[in-house]
């Protein structure tokens, strides 16, 4: 049989969907309790939304799914959403800008071409955006929210890595290179090429001493950033605001006993980031990331509004959680067998199943293919007395009943 599934696209079967929903539910529950409101944006957006702000690097733009829509005679291209944050920012600017503070969350798919077709071209992510708050507390709130969800999902060996795009941009400005070269270097860093930063040391005498300390060492406390500040501010005083911002954030994380690693080279992500950025790992798997993007909303034509956000990568989390039962626990599953297919028995069976479902059970009719082992209970509906025979497969016990109320009573209702 020829493979008919599109290259780079995956189906989510029942077991996958159970995991997917478990992640989504844990995420929704946390977000709602932290005061975030759910949004959903369209799958199609104008391409210019993503080009207008320098929001995606050219390398990423070359991998988006863009095309002319049915009314695209003007040459305006549309794109399958390649990122969740920019549509959320568009939504905020378009209809909610009067709000001083907007807290959004979403579970959405994003599309990005991947050459081999062995990796996913459609990915799912749980995203959150905190628009209108520019304080270190806001950054820490997002980090703690992301960590809470990972905790709920019992993800093991979670590591948090922190970097600061403001510091990197400050360093690039100190190099004797053109703005275009700065942009290119910045793109390389965002594409995950941490070496591009370390190679900078030789480009500037001022940076030669400071950079190895900044890039090679991985700190684990606010003390590390404070030490860097003492060292860097003498040579590079313009970095002081970024360093103070970074210190305030890691101070708060220390207070909350949230463990992290500071790794300035771990700054991959989106071009719209301006301040602290973070990556979340489970072992070696990157399962999420986010950061501050204060310049994005004004660049998109909105007011000068600070903002930050994150995304958890659902596809990777699905590989890390247990499957659970495909549809509810076995203890609440009942398999109904209809002995006689006369009208009265069929009608009584459907009524019984409806009552069981409204009492919280999963009631399935036996179609000959279910595995009884997946059910704690079986219920035979008979054409003669006793009308019902209920079997508790765990306790290996059979009991008889003559009406629905008696069945429910046997089940403890």
């Amino acid at each position, binding site marked *: 049989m020829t493979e008919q599934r599109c290259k780079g696209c995956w189906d989510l079967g029942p077991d996958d969907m159970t995991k997917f929903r478990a992640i989504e539910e844990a995420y929704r529950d946390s977000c709602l309790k932290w005061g975030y409101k759910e949004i959903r944006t369209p799958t199609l957006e104008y391409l*210019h939304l993503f*080009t207008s702000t320098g929001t995606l690097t*050219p390398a990423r733009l070359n991998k988006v799914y863009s095309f*002319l829509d049915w009314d695209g*005679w*003007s040459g305006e*291209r549309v794109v399958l959403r390649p990122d969740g944050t920019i549509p959320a920012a568009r939504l905020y600017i378009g209809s909610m800008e009067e709000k001083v503070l907007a807290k959004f969350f979403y579970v959405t798919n994003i599309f990005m071409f991947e050459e081999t077709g062995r990796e996913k071209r459609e990915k799912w992510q749980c995203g959150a955006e905190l628009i209108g708050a520019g304080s270190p507390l806001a950054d820490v709130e997002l980090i703690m929210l992301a960590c809470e969800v990972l905790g709920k999902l019992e993800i093991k060996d979670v590591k948090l890595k922190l970097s600061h795009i403001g510091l990197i941009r400050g360093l690039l400005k100190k190099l004797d290179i053109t703005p275009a070269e700065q942009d290119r270097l910045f793109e390389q860093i965002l594409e995950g090429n941490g070496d591009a930063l370390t190679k900078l040391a030789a480009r500037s005498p001022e940076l030669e001493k400071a950079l190895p300390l900044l890039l090679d060492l991985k700190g684990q406390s606010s003390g590390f950033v404070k030490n860097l500040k003492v060292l860097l501010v003498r040579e590079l005083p313009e970095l002081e605001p970024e360093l103070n911002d970074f210190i305030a954030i890691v101070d708060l994380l220390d207070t909350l006993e949230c463990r992290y690693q500071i790794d300035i080279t771990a700054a991959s992500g989106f071009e719209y980031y301006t301040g602290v950025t973070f990556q979340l790992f489970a072992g070696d798997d990157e399962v999420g990331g986010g950061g501050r993007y204060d310049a994005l909303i004004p660049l998109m034509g909105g007011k000068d509004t600070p903002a930050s956000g994150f995304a958890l990568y659902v596809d990777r989390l699905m590989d890390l959680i247990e499957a659970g039962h495909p549809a509810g626990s076995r203890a609440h599953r009942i398999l109904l067998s209809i002995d006689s297919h006369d009208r009265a028995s069929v009608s009584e069976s459907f009524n019984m199943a409806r009552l069981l479902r409204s009492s919280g059970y999963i009631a399935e009719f036996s179609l000959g293919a279910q595995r009884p082992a997946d059910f704690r209970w079986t219920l035979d509906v008979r054409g003669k007395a006793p009308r019902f025979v209920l079997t508790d497969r765990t306790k290996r016990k059979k009991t008889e009943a003559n009406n629905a109320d008696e069945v429910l009573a046997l089940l403890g209702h």
Partner: protein
Amino acid sequence: MSIKIALPKGRLLRDTAALLEKAGWELCGYEEGARFYRFESRRFPGMLLKLFHEKDIPIQVAVGNYDLGICGLDWIEELLVRYPSSALVKVKDLGYGASDLYAAASLEATTLDEMRSNLDVVRIASEYPNLAESFAAHLRLRHFKVYPLWGGAEVYPPESADLALLSEATVEPFAYGLVPTKTVLSSSAFLVANKTSWETKDLSEVLSTIGVGALPAKKPRATTSSAQTPGQRYSGWNDDDTVRLALPDGHQQVHAVKLLSEAGIRIEDYPSKTGNRRPCIGIEGVVVKVIRPQDMPMQVANGNFDLAITGKDWVREQLYQFPSSPIVDLLDLKFGRVRLVAVISKELPANDTLGLRQLVEGRSAPLRVASEYINIADRYARENHLGPYRVIPTWGATEAFLPEDADLLIENTETGSTIARHNLKIIDELFVSTACLLGSTNGKPGSRKQQTIRSIVETLKGAVERMSQKPEGA
């Protein structure tokens, strides 16, 4: 082992023929004006050589229809920039056909840096839409639109586009009052191989004859004029009252001139011996540009032109892609009559669409439909339930694709003789197309522009009626 090679027609043909002659391939018939598309090599008797439009060659090699191909690097990159995983190996720069691909703007235009920081839409016209989009992304243009064209991009700036991505080989920019603002690509003739063929077939004997392994002998570039003479401009192009008329280039020019003459409309330098694409028309308030008929429906729809003389086939192609395009067929001009037909090889045992459907039913390989009209071809295959199919876009000489490289063509024909000459047969007629005067539905009723348009329609209508009463050939 048979080796299949795709060779270019057009600008690279002469140098490619010289290269292969020097290589001792002893080709029969690979020369300018060739009426057939298949050639044989006396030196390599098993080799299959076929003639293609340059633009088709990278696609044909990438899909595996040909082991090797020769074409410009510009067309290779046009494919690779959009489809980087295409199965192509760039084997060798052949050193001739050097030509830069550059972004050109009018002399008075803002600089690229200004365009970068500009919030307005930057319009880019090009035959290379994929390279144009990539160029815009790398330039960090904030908001851009790309007009994919069949040709004539040089006439678009500054009124109908801000930038044109042009090949030096086909256009001398200064002649059009344009200046190259940035070189996008330095192109020359390249030998390309299909990746699988390269990995699995022994092509060494063929390759060694054309000096693969040796450094390319670069031919000097033709020097281009640097005199920056301002080109023609239409200062009132975008005035509310100005009617912007698109006239066709190519073989439809003769018919268009006859029609205008019959209508008593004076037009100067059309067709132009010097390549002038802005002829002067003797109607007040009307300005003219000469563009490709294939591009006209989109250009009327997007508001760059108010009227155009094009073919109904291209109008339909536009409407199949963009059904709500604001365009309207104002007048049947009766000339340029062609039939759009479905064509298969004479060898196939089918005489109509139903027969073809039965023939392809249960076949695991998708039906390959080649056409210049990709949206018409797509709809035809879909509506006739021709099983799984793939539409192969072509850029002319589509009949060369059957039977090796396609199973079905959707093609236009005047008399059917070319189709018969290539051992093909027509199994269906989709529709008959003639030239038409195309207008926009977005016009402001009662405006001066609309009055001028109405008057042009009436004048041409009278001319068409008079012409249709004349005996054929008069």
